């Protein structure tokens, strides 16, 4: 398979391309940052359930039935969806463009 040989040559060029390092460090930092946000949000929510149920039971205002827990829970769900959207937007735009250049320059 000459394809493999060609890939090896390309891999060598990619390794030495500063853009590759840039792509990996940028995307990795971005991915772990977003992961940390999700983890903090979710385990924060779990911690409230475990340790401070009273806060979640507080009504949003006088005479209102909705409690603090509802916007928080639904908020975690919506934030998860929005964060995936943000990641895909940047990864499929900025990062993929950088990736395309790296592959292009490796040929």
């Amino acid at each position, binding site marked *: 398979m000459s394809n493999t040989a060609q890939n090896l040559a390309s891999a060598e060029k*990619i390794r030495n391309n500063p853009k*590759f390092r840039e792509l990996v460090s940028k995307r990795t930092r971005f991915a772990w940052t977003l*992961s940390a946000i999700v983890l903090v949000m979710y385990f924060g929510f779990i911690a409230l359930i475990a340790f401070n149920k009273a806060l979640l039971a507080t009504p949003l205002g006088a005479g209102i039935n909705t409690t603090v827990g509802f916007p928080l829970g639904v908020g975690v769900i919506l934030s*998860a969806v929005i964060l995936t959207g943000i990641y895909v937007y940047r990864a499929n735009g900025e990062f993929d463009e950088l990736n395309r250049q790296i*592959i292009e320059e490796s040929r």
Partner: protein
Amino acid sequence: MRTTMTALAGALAAFGTLLATGTTALAAGADLGQAAQQATNWHAIVMFLIFVAGTLGITYWAAKRTKTAADFYAAGGGITGFQNGLAIAGDYMSAASFLGISALVYGSGYDGLIFSVGWLVGWPIILFLIAERLRNLGKYTFADVASYRLGRTPVRTFAATGALVVVIFYLIGQMVGAGQLIKLLFGMEYIYAVIIVGALMMIYVTFGGMVATTWVQIIKAGLLLSGATVIAFGVMYQFGFSFEQLFARAIEVHPKHQAIMSPGTLVSNPIDAVSLGIALMFGTAGLPHILMRFFTVPDAREARKSVFYATGFIGYFYILTFIIGFGAICLVATNPAYLDAVKGGLNLRGGNNMAAIHLAHAIGGDLFLGFISAVAFATILAVVSGLTLAGASAISHDLYASVFMHGKTTEGKEVTVSRYASLGLGVIAVLLGIVFEKQNVAFIVALTFSVAASANFPVLVMSMFWSGLTTRGAVIGGTIGLVTSVVLVVLSKAVWVQSFGYAEPIFPYAYPAIFSMPAAFFFTWLFSVLDNSPRAAKERAAFEAQSIRSETGLGAEGAAAH
């Protein structure tokens, strides 16, 4: 405490209540007349037959297009991100989450949201850390990725075992749930229900492979999302699209009143709260049938898109189930026609998992009830088909082709083995469904997610991110995670006390993941750093080449063909 555990178990899997229902129907002779009435649910049967006819037609079409191994395992890599997003949602949204979460909300209000949130937050993690690397490194199974630079035989054997354990446990849960549900909805004998589910999934997978499975999942997702939307819309319509009015009425009629607006007794112990959270979040990222879906798209770009669509659909669905649960409190609990007169209280005719089904009747009458019943059946079929295909690929692609034949086999033979494996898994699933009919299988979902989080997830994530990982570390650490999670579930109350009949559980918590997942990571790390073999040195050195492929997609399967 006992009630708490039962509520928790029932909520998790929906099976606890379903099983209780079965027993109640037998015990209470007065109920038999009503049960017989449910037997002639012709709307449901006709609509289900339409679904079966349609999906068999698709299977026929898919079978003609399924020629190569890539077609069989990965639909030729020709599924778009949007289609795959729907299929992932169809693979993931089980009848247990539809009926189980709405039943939990119906019974205790806010607690249902805890599960919805937990089952959703795994998805961003899959996207940020796993999806694109998985797509770039693998071909058909997650074992491809775990064994990319490690010893093929040991790592594939471990990964395939982890996959099969998850698949078989998950199948038991789905089959028992399916049998009970269909008995209830269609008035069919349990054993026939289980056989029909088993036979249909074998036909889809054996003949249509991933193409048919994908389309069954897409259609099911469309049906379930639109059905749930109509129910939720019907509920909100009656309350002037105001959550305040909906909540006010629910607080008024529910026997727990104000307590339904905040977390109750569901998660009382902080250790279990966190442990359940870990299992739900990271277990999702270790489910073989979910991971396999990422190989059906052409590249990393579409893989990312599919997670975004899937997360959107699943999040939307969980919010709907929440509205449905509250709707059931307001519209079902207040109507004696839906209540179990013998058991009294909030208990529903047919068990509390019927909350969403009765609500469908309250909103749209017999026809809509039939539709939702058929959708629930279709939901189970889609999930078991995905599981069967994932199990069959672990057997044929990982164990047969790589481990036993050392790669010296043809694609055609591998696919043939895969088809036989699907048939075998179908037979096993039916037999296990029959064996476990009378067992309390509520612990199964906890076990499945805990094993996935403790065995598959740590090895997968470390193989992608940590250059120091060696074969020895992966196999020993992963096996420790697998064994620890299974043993701790067996020693916990759900099995040790409720199935084996001992007085006290040896493991005091309900979920093992808080212990078993860190144990897997720790021992994987420990046995990797202690590994001074020449092979380990080669494996560490191979990480850089792997990371070039995983980050850029250079040389990724399928990408070159386009």
